């Protein structure tokens, strides 16, 4: 539809005008509570994130709510308090709830507004049976499978964390301590191989409602492109599966569709979300979020690059150059001798230090034991800890 606009724009030059459209509701919108999280009925911790919506014109999205009082209540007058940690997260260690009771969440914010969710029945997620993948020409597709013999759970939501090994462009065997270049501790100070992780940013939903049995087979979770760096060496994904009620499923599918596109009058009509949390102080105030109670099941798999086709990853290293630098470098017509190592690598030494470069390899005169210089490159090309962690995660194998 966008192209059609151009027609109007050109006509517009003579007869039309485009002006900011800022109705009062957008200029000064109410600020709405956003509640995200699942009450975990088992031994795992429960994390509830509270935040507020921000204006469309705001450059940041996060607006955590601090100093709120958050409690989980059951329908037999028991209450469990959650404690505030950083960034609007309210946490409780394993609650070990009684699955036959119903639970709700009560939130009292610092500005004395009170919110309460509907009572929610505990819905445990059945275990994930499989996480499998298939190899396509353009990448891999990942699937999950589960079954629920109790026939209680028909709707599912998934999120996942991907972790993968990646490498920097150059394998640095030297390191500057600021004053001088030394050999690198390749075990504890390895900056060539790192682990990076990412969490899902799309909402993944599934339903077995049309089936006579509650079985999910080859349920698509995500896909990884063949050119992704994620598949460069070894890739792992942990999929978490949440059980949803039918209402919760509708809520999540709404939020999924609503946020695929921005609303113009040429776009599909969005619709407002109706969660199960309400404001007691002002019943008209919208609250975003759907509270579920239940266990979360998860499963992890590893995919080694060696079993994949010989795909070439797209790395952010296109601009990387390794530059030879010398202790004694004769510069210009006057043949002034400069110490390039101090200038570019030893960052404590006086010098312009346009860029602190990281030494990679030594440059040796044949037969000599000490290097006359080093090849070096920008940290982004050498130091993988800029984008990830060089500590192997505990689960890695």
């Amino acid at each position: 539809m966008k192209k059609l606009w151009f027609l109007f724009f050109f006509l517009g030059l003579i007869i039309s005008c485009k002006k900011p459209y800022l109705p009062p509701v957008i200029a000064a919108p109410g600020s709405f509570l956003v509640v995200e999280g699942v009450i975990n009925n088992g031994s795992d911790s429960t994390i509830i994130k509270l935040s507020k919506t921000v204006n469309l014109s705001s450059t940041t999205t996060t607006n955590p709510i601090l100093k709120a009082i958050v409690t989980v209540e059951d329908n037999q007058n028991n209450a469990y308090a959650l404690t505030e940690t950083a960034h609007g997260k309210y946490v409780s260690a394993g609650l070990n709830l009684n699955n036959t009771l119903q639970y709700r969440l009560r939130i009292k914010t610092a500005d004395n507004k009170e919110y309460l969710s509907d009572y929610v029945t505990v819905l445990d997620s059945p275990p994930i049976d499989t996480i499998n993948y298939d190899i396509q020409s353009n990448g891999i597709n990942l699937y999950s499978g589960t079954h629920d013999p109790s026939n209680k759970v028909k709707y599912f939501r998934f999120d996942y964390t991907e972790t993968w090994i990646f490498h920097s462009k150059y394998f640095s065997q030297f390191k500057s301590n600021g004053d001088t270049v030394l050999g690198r501790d390749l075990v504890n100070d390895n900056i060539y191989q790192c682990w990076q992780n990412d969490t899902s940013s799309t909402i993944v939903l599934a339903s077995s409602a049309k089936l006579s049995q509650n079985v999910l087979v080859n349920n698509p979770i995500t896909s990884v492109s063949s050119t992704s760096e994620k598949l460069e060496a070894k890739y792992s994904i942990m999929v978490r599966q949440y059980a949803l009620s039918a209402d919760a499923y509708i809520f999540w599918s709404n939020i999924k569709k609503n946020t695929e596109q921005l609303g113009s009058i040429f776009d599909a009509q969005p619709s407002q979300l109706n969660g199960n949390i309400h404001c007691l102080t002002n019943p008209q105030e919208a609250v975003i979020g759907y509270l579920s109670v239940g266990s979360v099941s998860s499963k992890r798999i590893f995919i080694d690059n060696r079993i994949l086709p010989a795909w070439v990853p797209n790395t952010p290293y296109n601009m990387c150059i390794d530059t030879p630098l010398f202790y004694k470098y004769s510069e210009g017509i006057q043949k002034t001798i400069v110490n390039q190592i101090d200038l570019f690598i030893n960052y404590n030494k006086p010098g312009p230090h346009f860029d602190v470069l990281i030494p990679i390899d030594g440059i040796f005169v044949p037969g000599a034991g000490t290097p006359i210089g080093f090849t070096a490159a920008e940290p982004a090309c050498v130091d993988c800890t800029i984008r990830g962690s060089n500590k192997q995660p505990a689960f890695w194998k």
Partner: protein
Amino acid sequence: MRKFYLLCFCYLFFMQMASGQQTNNKLISGNFQQATIAQFVNGVESKSSYHFYYDSKSFDSLRITLQVNDKPLETILDMAFKNTEYHYAISQNLVFLTKGRQIKTDLAEGYLETTTTAVAANQTTTVADYTDERDKKVPEATTENKLYEIGIKTNEIKPGSSRLSGYIRNIKSGEAIVGASIYVASTKTGIATDQFGYFTIILPRGRHVLNIRGLGMRDTRRQIILYSDGRLNIELQEQVNSLKEVKISADKVANVRSAEMGVSRLNISSIKQIPAAFGEADVLKVVLTLPGVTSVGEATTGFNVRGGAADENLILLDGATIYNPAHFFGFFAAFNPDIVKNIELYKSSIPEKYGGRLSSVLEITNREGNKKIFTGSAGIGLLTSRLNIEGPIVKDKTSFILGARTTYSDWLLHLLPEAYKHSSASFNDVNLGISHQINDKNNIYLTGYLSNDKFKLNSDTAYSYSNKSLVLKWKHNFNNKLYSVISGGIDKYQYDINSTANPVNAFDLGFNINQTNFRADFTYYLSNKHTIDFGVNSILYNVNPGKFEPTGAQSLVLPQVIAPEHALESGLYLGDKYDVSSKLTINAGVRLNVYNYLGAQVVDNYAPNLPREPVNVIDSTSYKSGQIIKTYISPDIRISARYLLNDDLSLKAGYNTLHQYIHLLSNTTSISPTDVYKLSDSNIKPEHGDQVSLGIFKNAKQNTLEMSVEVYYKRIRDYLDYKSGAVLLLNQHVEQDVINTQGKAYGAEFLLKKTAGKLNGWVSYTYSRTFLKQDDPNAGELINGGAYYPANYDKPNAFNFTGNYKFSHRYSVSLDVAYSTGRPITLPIAKYYYGGSERVFYSDRNQYRIPDYFRSDFSLNIEGNHRIHQLTHNSWTIGVYNLTGRQNAYSTFFTEQSGVISGYKLSIFASPIPFINYNIRF
């Protein structure tokens, strides 16, 4: 000089009579059977000393059947001329027979008492009145004052009723006049001509005066004596000086008298008075000024009638369905104002012969070609020009009319800065009409229509769309009571978008809809109380919902073709117009709709009671070509009634039900050239609507002031709305992205119209609401929690003023003012972080409104001189569109730039736009 002689003659004549007036009392006997006047006169003269004077021409149609024995001449003549317009005067033994006027054998009262000079004066006055009037009336006397005798003439009129039928035509062009009304004051009955100018009326035998009114025609009357069933063709004069007269209704009394409700008729001359952008008369813009009709938006041609969506209007051009009635993205209507004769919009009492749309039927009738002489017209505007020619192929039998329009807007585009310079846009349309009269009972009509739109933006993406249609109609009169119209035709609408800018991505996207129509409509005049309409019609649809293909050898685009859809929509109808009494008229009809969705097709089956989502597809079924996949049978009821409280005040009420089987899938509210039509199938139910309406109609000041108030309430079932984030184009499973909503609409419409005088025009105000709801949890997401929400086109208040003030026959000004509430919009109002991403928080659906719409247009019309006989007639239209320069929202939209979401309001025609147009008629 001649007058003088005549006066002298009369003078002598009266003197003579005055000198020896006495009655001759001789008794006469005779027996005449179907005698001509000559036989009768000879018979009487031979038996008496009387001598008869008469004009044999005036008496050529008289037949006298008479048997008398010894009666005085007066008695014989009384009997012979009873119930005729013939008169006699006896002076001594001289008998003067006259037609229409009686000769007085006495001198005018006081004649002999006056002086000689006074005598002369009086003489002049008395006699001059007689001759003067005769002279004056001569041009029209041949028509208006002639007594037409219908049927087999007898001097005695049998009691009972007979049927009169015939055509009403334009005397100049021979063209049929549609919707002309015949009103018989003596019986308070009336009838309007049909689309062929044909009428049939049942009247008591005897003498009547027919008052005839036609759009753009001079009001006239005909005197008839109805002896038995017969025919009368009436030719009407064009109203030459009526160029500036706003006439809305075919009949000044139709407002009150017709049983139809919610019907608006407009002829082209009133359409042409409404100022339009770029000065080109726009058929559809005028429709928007009528009560109950609102515009979808600025510079769009889509319109909403009584809470219906833009696709719920059936637009018929001489029987051909037009799917996209707009050129140039809605800046111009796709109808050539030089060819269009009139338009009729049915928004409440939809005749039972039409079906398949929920809201309204807009019938656009093109003119027939001039059957007598070759004529033409041309118009030149800033962006468009048009030309039409018409004339006889065989004089009085066969005629043609050809109209064409084209645009040359590219020059305007080339004036633009570099970024837009390489754009191009053009459109054209061609209308052809051929009508042929085979004989008195058979006529055939062939109409063709072709419209093309093309535009290419700088982006190298070329858009094009076109409407094509061809209709052949055969009208056959079986007899005076029964006639039929059989027609067949094909309509095609297609669009195409292609881009070759990037050879790798070069694509061609196409959509088309082909329909083949057949209809047979019959009208049977059962009696003077019943007129029966019945018939059958069918439409075979072939829709290619979308095909996306690579173009060029380098293109890597993967072809994507949505399987074509086929369906057959048929209707069988029967309707009766029943005049219960002179006060109460009822139109009642039923229509049986049968809709078959046909193969070849693969249809997905969804689990019962679950939303139609990809996850709920169980399996799919393949159907062979022509196999019936799904049949919907649904009857429609159409009832309307009129009760006349008095001559200029009536109450009308109506109830109707309608079904719709073809749906426009559009994420805009208007009809845009990237929208697709979807046929009802196993998963998408037909839309259903029913409406009850009530109205009060009042005429005042000799029918020059018309007032009406109408209220309606409408229920809508299974109207298609869209799920959040619906994808409509190239969607293999459209049913997964749409939802059936239930709706209600209600409103009140007020209209005050002045049809005559220097100032004429109309004011309308409409209050209307339209709400939809989706509260079926099995259908998927609830919209606004299942509560009613305003439809996209819900505009509670709409006000229109259209006025024309005539300074003189040559100069007039028009002013057009429109106001309406802004349409609803769902706004993004905040954003937040959830589920791993930034999300946008929307208001309730359609909770907010864009700013109100207001526009006023002004134009000055200058006519050339009004001599009828000149080579060309010229006129100028100069005006300003959007006089106040208000920046109405054409659209509001939101874009994200570096993490910030900003809203914009786009206005087009945001400042006063002057225009000028030159028209020429030859």
